[in-house]
């Protein structure tokens, strides 16, 4: 579903942050703006974000900055605990006997900021709106597994033949049912993401049409509410105050200000000077300083992204089609050195196709294939006839800060395998994807993936399943597909995970992609706050943040 926006997560510079420059109102002291604690609410916790790409509409937000803000304003059906497993928030229960038809019951007592209760219709309205192709919402694809999605997204030049998903039915105020196209045991794990938030009645001007100003002054149902309308492109701060009526109790802090920066290095300086409280992304060059300077207040944890080297296993060059060669290449990559030097420790060596933030990840699952062993790698390479094959090409996009690590891998392969290697920069990543789609790209290529929802399925099916939406390697295995189907139809999440892991083992043996590194979340916070936690979606748990 989602290939990472390299630019967004790969580089920590303003030049590549996919945000538009922010602006501080009228530009004088009376405006809301970033700066000293004097600005905005004096008691507010100040959080760094880049400018959200869109207005604050849950279904139209798929980037981390916007999701950060919406996570404070809205709560959804489920959230994720320390074991990465979903736990119910608004949902009383999410049940199914066949993993296809799901019955979702809601708890009492959750209210919108305008006082109305949260009802089943709010979820159905919101999902129908986002799933409707005519509304061009970024989160549209999240609803692809629900029955009726295809009628709402008929493709180019056609108008949707429906306005609602046939798979959604409101039973009563506290119950609705979801009919999926195919069984999927991991469905509840999807529901904690921003795109699945409900929307209040007040958001809609008429049936299926959002009010124009809702995105700048959203009415949410979360622990914080917006305290003054946010003008995108103008205001440098998004101000929120505590929702005193929140069902789960009051948040620990009175207010949160999201301060928009275009440059992480600048934000980090503001954090050090005490003008900012929490950053969940640090500039790479500041990692070493941050570890020293912040000590316990430095956060380092895995994030959901994985970086790969991929191969067109069906239509590629001779080396790309050969599983032994792929394994030899994988063993010749010195992941430890690359993550420590090229990425200054902001990435960690990868050893699975499932990220550590997801229940189902197994440390060392990749085994020998992902362990650096130049001697073995060379032996395997020669045994498979690698030295008689064409030179290895590694394609990457030149606009996302990938040059260094690709060059490092190329040097690994030259030194350890004696292979001829050509790194090949392309202007835009999409060019490589298009060429792969047209079977014109024969060499290897860089690839990365960020999860859409914390289920192993989201790492396996889109990338390696037959007809997967992002299956760029052309990998196809009936056994693999069957295992996924089995896992999807499982009765419980845990049983499903078992089959997903078996499918994972298959791909690890074949290595259509070579896992190179896991992305990490590096953050830090000031002395003014404590109990700062970051979830698998890289969202800060603002409900539990406290003043120190």
């Amino acid at each position, binding site marked *: 579903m989602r290939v990472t926006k390299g630019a967004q997560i790969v580089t920590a510079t303003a030049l590549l942050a996919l945000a538009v420059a922010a602006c501080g109102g009228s530009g004088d002291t009376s405006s809301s703006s970033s700066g000293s604690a004097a*600005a905005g609410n004096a008691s507010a916790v100040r959080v760094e974000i880049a400018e959200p790409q869109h207005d604050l509409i849950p279904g139209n937000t798929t980037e981390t900055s916007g999701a950060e803000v919406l996570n404070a304003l809205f709560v959804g059906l489920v959230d994720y605990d320390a074991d990465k497993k979903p736990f119910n928030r608004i949902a009383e229960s999410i049940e199914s006997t066949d993993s296809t038809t799901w019955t979702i019951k809601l708890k009492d007592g959750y209210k919108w900021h305008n006082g109305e209760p949260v009802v089943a219709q709010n979820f159905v309205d919101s999902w129908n709106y986002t799933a409707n192709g005519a509304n061009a919402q970024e989160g549209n694809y999240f609803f692809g597994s629900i029955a009726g999605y295809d009628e709402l997204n008929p493709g180019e030049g056609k108008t949707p033949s429906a306005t609602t998903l046939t798979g959604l039915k409101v039973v009563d105020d506290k119950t609705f049912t979801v009919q999926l196209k195919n069984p999927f045991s991991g469905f509840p794990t999807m529901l904690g993401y921003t795109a699945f938030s409900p929307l209040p009645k007040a958001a809609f001007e008429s049936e299926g049409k959002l009010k124009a100003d809702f995105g700048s002054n959203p009415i949410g149902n979360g622990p914080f509410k917006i305290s003054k309308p946010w003008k995108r492109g103008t205001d440098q701060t998004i101000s929120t105050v505590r929702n005193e009526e929140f069902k789960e109790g009051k948040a620990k802090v009175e207010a949160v200000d999201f301060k928009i920066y275009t440059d992480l290095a600048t934000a980090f300086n503001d954090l050090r000077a005490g003008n900012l409280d929490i950053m969940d992304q640090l500039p790479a060059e500041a990692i070493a300083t941050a570890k020293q300077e912040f000590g316990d207040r430095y956060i380092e944890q895995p994030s959901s992204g994985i970086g790969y080297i991929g191969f067109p296993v069906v239509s590629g060059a001779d080396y790309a089609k050969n599983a032994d060669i792929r394994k030899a290449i994988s063993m010749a990559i010195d992941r430890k050195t690359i993550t420590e030097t090229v990425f200054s420790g902001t990435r960690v060596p990868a050893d699975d196709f499932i990220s550590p933030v997801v229940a189902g990840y197994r440390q060392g699952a990749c085994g020998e294939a992902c362990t650096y062993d130049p001697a073995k790698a060379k032996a395997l390479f020669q045994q498979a006839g690698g030295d008689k094959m064409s030179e290895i090409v590694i394609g990457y996009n030149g606009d996302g800060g990938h040059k260094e690590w690709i060059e490092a891998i190329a040097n690994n392969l030259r030194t350890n395998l004696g292979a001829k290697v050509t790194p090949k920069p392309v202007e835009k990543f999409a060019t490589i994807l298009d060429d792969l789609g047209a079977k014109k790209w024969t060499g290897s290529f860089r690839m990365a993936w960020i999860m859409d929802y914390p289920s192993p399925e989201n790492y396996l099916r889109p990338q390696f399943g037959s007809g997967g939406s992002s299956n760029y390697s052309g990998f196809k295995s009936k056994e693999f597909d069957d295992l996924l189907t089995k896992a999807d139809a499982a009765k419980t999440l845990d049983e499903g995970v078992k089959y997903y892991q078996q499918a994972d083992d298959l791909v690890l043996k074949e290595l259509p992609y070579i896992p190179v590194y896991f992305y990490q979340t590096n953050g830090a916070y000031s002395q003014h706050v404590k109990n700062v936690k970051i979830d698998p979606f890289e969202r800060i748990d603002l409900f539990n943040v406290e003043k120190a």
Partner: protein
Amino acid sequence: MGRYVLRRLLQAIPVLLGTTFLIFAIVYALPGDPLQALAGEKRVDPVFAAAMREQFHLNEPLVVRYGYYVRDIVSGNFGTTFRGLPVSTIFEGKFQVTFKLAMTALIFEAIIGVGLGLWAALRRGKWEDKAVLAFTLLLVSIPTLVSGFVLQLVLGVKFKQSTGLALFPVAGIGDGLRSYLLPGFVLATVSVAYLTRLTRTSLMETLRADYVRTAIAKGMPRRRVLGRHALRNSLIPMVTYLGADLGTLMGGAVITETIFNLPGIGQQLFQSVYLRENPVVVGIVTVLVLIYIVANLVVDLLYAVLDPRIRYE
């Protein structure tokens, strides 16, 4: 005088048309598809792309598109970005921020540049003169990227960490005019060096003029000679430089604005070029050209004030 101003303003119209068309052509000739930039690394959804091309006339020839653009501009509409934000919203407050920054820089420039230049000219050939020349050389050779980060770290972060006093804000514009001091100074550094040297040379020229010698021979106090005669006549090149510099500062404050997180037009311009938000780029450049034209006009009118021999009729 009034007729002269009117004529100059009328002359600005073809200039504006020419420059905006050039920018328009250049921006749209950049390689790659602006719609692809919207989608990041995902493939562009064909339905969405078709609708966008329709809305922004991307299928029309360049000249036709430019025609649409001029038509909109004349009616005061700068259009919308590909992300659906009115361009005028993006401008809101941004020109103001950049203008304040540029003015702060200009004031620093004028005070330091003219002061140092004057001092060097009067101490011509002595060690003070040489020191000033060496100092300006140093200033010119430090890029703003370096001076910006160093000053931000030392005066913004370290100073506050060690004394607890937030003398200079690290970033943003939350402290009113104080927010502009540091970035203004950083932005001014390079120009200060030029202006110092310009002042020095220009004043030395004037000091050698006959009327200065006459004035001194008449026994006029030294201060009056300098102030009334020499300096006033030397101001013409400086004012020219400062006027032209205003335009440069407005458009060239990208790095400074980024370092200090000032939501100004330079930062916006860079972001918009990167994101291929062509309507914003063209809009900003249009306004910058206008500022240039007006600044030049003001400079020309100032000549008449400074030098009575110049008359515009």
